[in-house]
């Protein structure tokens, strides 16, 4: 009996690893849930991965010689399947104020030729990314932006000697690991009944403040109101040359 179980594991280990990964990617693709982890532009690469994993699974099953299975292989298999547990269990669709506080360095995306936001203009307002890419155009004007709320940020408090709420979004290039936060300081903004990570719409006049040798963008006399989360929490840039 033990021999049969061992032989079955040996025979099915590689095909099952490939199939488990393939069905996970398929599920993420069908539900569109991959956009919680990856940029939308990764869809063709996910499809390609599925197309590679399927024949690999069949080939593994058809092998004449069955690979050995010892402690080392068991550990390797367990490690290889570990991300699937996290992917299936992940309920968060975006990074929040926790990641904002560890990643925010007081700067962010600045004006850049050839770059433009892929998604934005959320809820009819101005995309936060557009504000950062075209700061000169919006400076001094009244704007409305959509983002998540951070009730305070230690870095900003240190620079301005006062605690202010911020509205922030993450700009993704490839995946959540490289998502960079951009934020506007909400001067005199009241966020009494709101909590961190709530989605808000903030309105006010854009002002560029240079503090400690770096530029901070702020909304003067900001008004804040809660809004539903947008369908796409991340912002993306596209390369205008393409």
């Amino acid at each position, binding site marked *: 009996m033990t021999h049969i179980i061992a032989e079955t594991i040996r025979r099915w280990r*590689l095909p099952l690893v490939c199939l488990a*990964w393939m069905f996970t*990617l398929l599920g*993420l693709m069908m539900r569109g849930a*991959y956009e*919680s*982890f*990856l940029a939308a532009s*990764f869809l063709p*690469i*996910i499809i*390609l*991965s599925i197309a*590679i*994993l399927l*024949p*690999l699974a069949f*080939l*593994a099953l058809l*092998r*004449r*010689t069955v*690979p050995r299975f*010892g*402690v*080392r292989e068991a*550990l390797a298999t*367990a*490690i*290889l399947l*570990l*991300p699937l*547990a996290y*992917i299936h269990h992940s*309920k*968060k669709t975006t*990074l929040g104020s*926790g*990641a904002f506080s*560890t*990643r925010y*360095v007081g*700067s*962010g995306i*600045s004006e*850049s*030729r*050839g770059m433009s936001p892929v998604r934005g203009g959320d809820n009819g307002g101005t995309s936060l990314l557009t504000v950062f890419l075209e700061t000169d155009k919006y400076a001094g004007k009244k704007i409305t932006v959509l983002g998540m709320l951070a009730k305070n940020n230690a*870095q900003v408090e240190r620079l301005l000697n006062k605690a202010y709420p911020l509205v922030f979004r993450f*700009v993704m*290039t*490839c*995946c*959540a*690991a*490289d998502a*960079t936060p951009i934020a506007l300081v909400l001067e005199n903004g009241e966020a009494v009944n709101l909590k961190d990570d709530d989605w808000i719409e903030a309105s006010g006049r854009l002002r560029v403040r240079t503090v400690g040798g*770096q*530029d901070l963008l702020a909304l003067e006399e900001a008004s804040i109101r809660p809004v539903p989360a947008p369908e796409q929490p991340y912002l993306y840039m596209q*390369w205008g040359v393409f």
Partner: protein
Amino acid sequence: MGEIMTTRLEGAVPAGQPRRPSLADMLMGMALVVVAAAYLLPFAASGNEAVDNFSLVFSSIVLEAMPFMLLGTLMGGAIEVFISRGRMESLLPRSAAASACVAAAMGIVFPVCECAIVPVVRRLAGKGLPAAAAIAYLLAGPIVNPVVGLSTAMAYNFDWRPVAIRLGFGYVIAVGVALSLSRAFKRGSLFAAGVVPDEHTRTYGQSDHGHGGCSCGRGHSHRRGHDGGAACGCGRGHGKSGSFGERISAACNHALDDFMATAPYLVAGAAIAAIAQTCLERRLFVDLASSSLLSSAVMALLAILLNLCSEADAFIAASFRGLVPFSAQMAFLVIGPMFDIKLLLMYRSLFKARVVPLLAALVVTAVLLMSVLIEAMGIAL
């Protein structure tokens, strides 16, 4: 490690006497405990923001890297089956220096990211690519390529100086480290068992299919020996007699072996990187950088910990403009694609254990020297 355990059980310990666990056994046991705990974490600590962030970042890194790794293993499998040793030898100059110089620029023609390049280089090395050339391509390929050049240009507002410095120094450092390592180690003591064939017997050491049966699934006789042409990584000659379909099948089987050999290292590295991304405040790295050299060291450390893709890291580096010197931003951009936690673990599937720390030390030293040089030249944005 299973083999170590088996050997000890069979021979060295007298009957009736309990066997003392070796260091390898203990490490394996610890790894199993850590992996078991990691399986429980998302269920036990759901709702905890740090765990949720870790979960999101860990999944993202693996999901982003896995497709490229699969493509890399397929490329490696194709190289194994379709390119003969003779052809490989004829492609590059004979001298180590010249072959390293050519290989370091191969990314311009064959752009491969850092996740895909490890399985490709495993097969190239097995095919007889000179060690210096293999290491040069491994280190330079993810930097010296058009995609990375363009993304760096975009991030730096089409200022071409960061592009030239990143690609130029990336190339020089890759060639320098490759030549140093290839002189410090003989070919057989450089690459891990199973990567290159034994020079005398033309057989491979312990690999994923080092059990004595070739996993390519073609059922060829071991007595056929080597044809001197399309020598297979499994140590038995495939010859060129197989049909195209059979050779495709063999390439895919080799890809599967490489995937199983390198992907666990990728996942383990991604987990460590996700912990670093979740716990470390980036602002601390800016605050720590009191001098330009220290800034470069700190930014290099940040790149090692963050494990970013070489096509995306320029945007992160650019976000540090005005906060750290330009030389430190370049240290971040040059070291990341050559050596980070994920790669450190993946290199274990390619090199012998003692080679990896030396490679890391050489890369770090070279990058810091580059920063000093950039400062001395007064280059700033």
